[in-house]
């Protein structure tokens, strides 16, 4: 997500409308993965009341798993993608089981400190294993971009977009249509009552964290081949995910989905029309504006923490 990318820059700088359309297309594609990141984080916060600082590290983990399977072990690209997501889910479940389960009755600050510790340890483990050098992953897509009018879209980006949409759909299905999803929503509404109704809250927690982590890992695995992979990539991913989640309202899944796209549009337009150096500062701008004008998020329900 550090956008030193080899992305299809607008080639035709002449026509402002075409330029705008190109930025819009880029933003739409980026927005899908941002939404994945945001949904994962907001799910974990909403249900578990955990500010998950390892979220960006799961994103980096997904990208590095792609690098490992595709570039080092020469596994098929699409199989590698599945493996990366599955390993992200497993790592998330492990983190929940080892670190968070025994802190369930602790306050939000305590879990925050634990998650910060885990974040530092994970990021530096990546640095230790993979070194700080940025790596790239080759993807099996034609290098000639798809051209619609004067708008160019790389095939790799199109694949990212479609897969991200599919995963968003899957997440909605899991949350809204399955029994586990029902248990998750019940826990979100009222933990005590959910427990009284016989819902295994431990299981819900583990499932939530695993699912959120899986979505973050999927975002990383999808964007890793588009940009470059490096150990510090998780930091920006975390910050952006936080911005998206604040934008949509903490714990609000629809908000996070829309928020992901809004942030992507702001970044793309900001980088295109103001200065590319401050692309990554847009998230902060979003947070500031939201806190000034609508502190509970764009899609606030009654939920308000504190």
């Amino acid at each position: 997500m550090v956008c030193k990318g080899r992305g299809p820059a607008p080639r035709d700088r002449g026509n402002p409308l075409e330029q705008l359309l190109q930025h819009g297309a880029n933003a739409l594609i980026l927005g899908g993965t941002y939404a994945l990141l945001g949904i994962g984080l907001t799910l974990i916060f909403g249900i578990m009341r955990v500010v998950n600082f390892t979220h960006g590290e799961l994103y980096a983990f997904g990208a590095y798993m792609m690098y490992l399977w595709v570039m080092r072990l020469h596994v098929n690209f699409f199989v590698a993608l599945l493996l990366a997501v599955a390993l992200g889910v497993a790592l998330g479940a492990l983190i929940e089981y080892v670190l968070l389960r025994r802190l369930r009755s602790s306050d939000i600050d305590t879990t925050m400190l634990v998650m910060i510790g885990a974040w530092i340890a994970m990021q530096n483990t990546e640095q230790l294993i993979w070194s700080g050098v940025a790596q790239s992953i080759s993807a099996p897509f034609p290098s000639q971009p798809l051209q619609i009018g004067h708008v160019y879209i790389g095939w790799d980006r199109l694949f990212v977009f479609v897969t991200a949409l599919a995963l968003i759909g899957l997440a909605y299905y899991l949350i809204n249509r399955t029994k586990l999803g029902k248990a998750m929503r019940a826990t979100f509404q009222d933990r005590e009552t959910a427990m009284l109704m016989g819902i295994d809250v431990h299981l819900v927690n583990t499932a939530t964290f695993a699912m959120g982590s899986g979505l973050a890992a999927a975002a990383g695995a999808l964007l890793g081949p588009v940009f470059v992979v490096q150990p510090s990539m998780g930091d920006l991913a975390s910050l952006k995910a936080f911005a998206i989640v604040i934008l949509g309202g903490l714990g609000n899944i629809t908000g996070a989905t829309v928020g992901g796209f809004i942030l992507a549009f702001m970044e793309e337009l900001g980088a295109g029309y103001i200065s590319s150096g401050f692309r990554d500062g847009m998230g902060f701008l979003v947070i500031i504006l939201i806190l000034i004008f609508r502190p509970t998020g764009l899609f606030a329900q009654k939920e308000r923490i504190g």
Partner: protein
Amino acid sequence: MRRLATAAWLLVLVSAPLWLRSPYFLHVLIITGIFTIAAMSLNLLLGYTGQLSLGHVAFFGIGAYTSALMSLGFDIDLTDTFKLVVEPKPVALSFAVAIAASALFGWLIGRLSFKVRGAYFVIVSLSFAEVVRLVALNWVSLTQGPMALNNIPPVSVWLPGIGEYRFLGKVPNYYLMLAVAVVSYVVIARLVRSRAGRAMIALRENEALATSVGVDVTRYLVLATIVSAAMAGAAGALYAHYVRIVDPDIFLFIYTVTMVIMVVTGGKGTLAGPIVGGIIFGIVPQVLRDMAGPEVQWIIYGILMIVIVYFLPKGIVPALRDGLQRRRHVRDAGIDPLASAPPAEAAQRR
């Protein structure tokens, strides 16, 4: 007894340059001291109001950059025709401006993020630090970007009878650091024992209750943020004029983590906690440095943070105090040691 212990501590600290012969150790001690001051300022927020600032390094860095720029002089092109030119200013004045600038940003961040409680302040402060780092990196005409600001003059003061005195070298800087640290300590100690400090602790313990008895919670939170940011800015300015070079890496998140871990290990919400934690985490990495690379060190930091939260949740200082108190109780009359004061009160009494 307590007075005696304080005096002994001060004596050890004041005499350190006399018995610490190695300039390297003195350097480690100065850097440790500067970060301890930053940790003390963080403790005011994290320990006494219960708000975790994950962007504390931003205030530290703003202090460093402001003081460096003021003492070096700078110009900003506001428009094509108008140019803001600041001639180099005396370092003492730069230092004061740096503190004011950090305080101003503390006020802004506090005003913004305390509209809503909970995780917001953490996230806002965290992304604020990242944005400040981006600005320092990208505004090359002002900050030199990654090329860093060089040749920052040392702190100098005008003393009657002596004239201008420049804090050059390790020993003068050590005493300068010690002076700032003592002032910071006294400010925090007085603040937390004042009416405002009691209000902060009250809202940390139970915000709803504090509000119900008429404590203007947001006002005190913002006040704590301002004081904390100003103090971190002072530490940053101290750092800039001692190391005499500042680059955008000063805003790295890892320094905030260092401050947090100092406070949490030593004991948040105690006056001595950040000092104990600061000394441990200022000196231990230097010892570790020969044995392990930076990554391994940070991994150890991360794991240590988790372990401390699990096994020593209150930190070293409260744990030691509880231990002492329990012994005394048992010796005196067999009073139930668990019936002693809750930690907040104990912290305050101290």
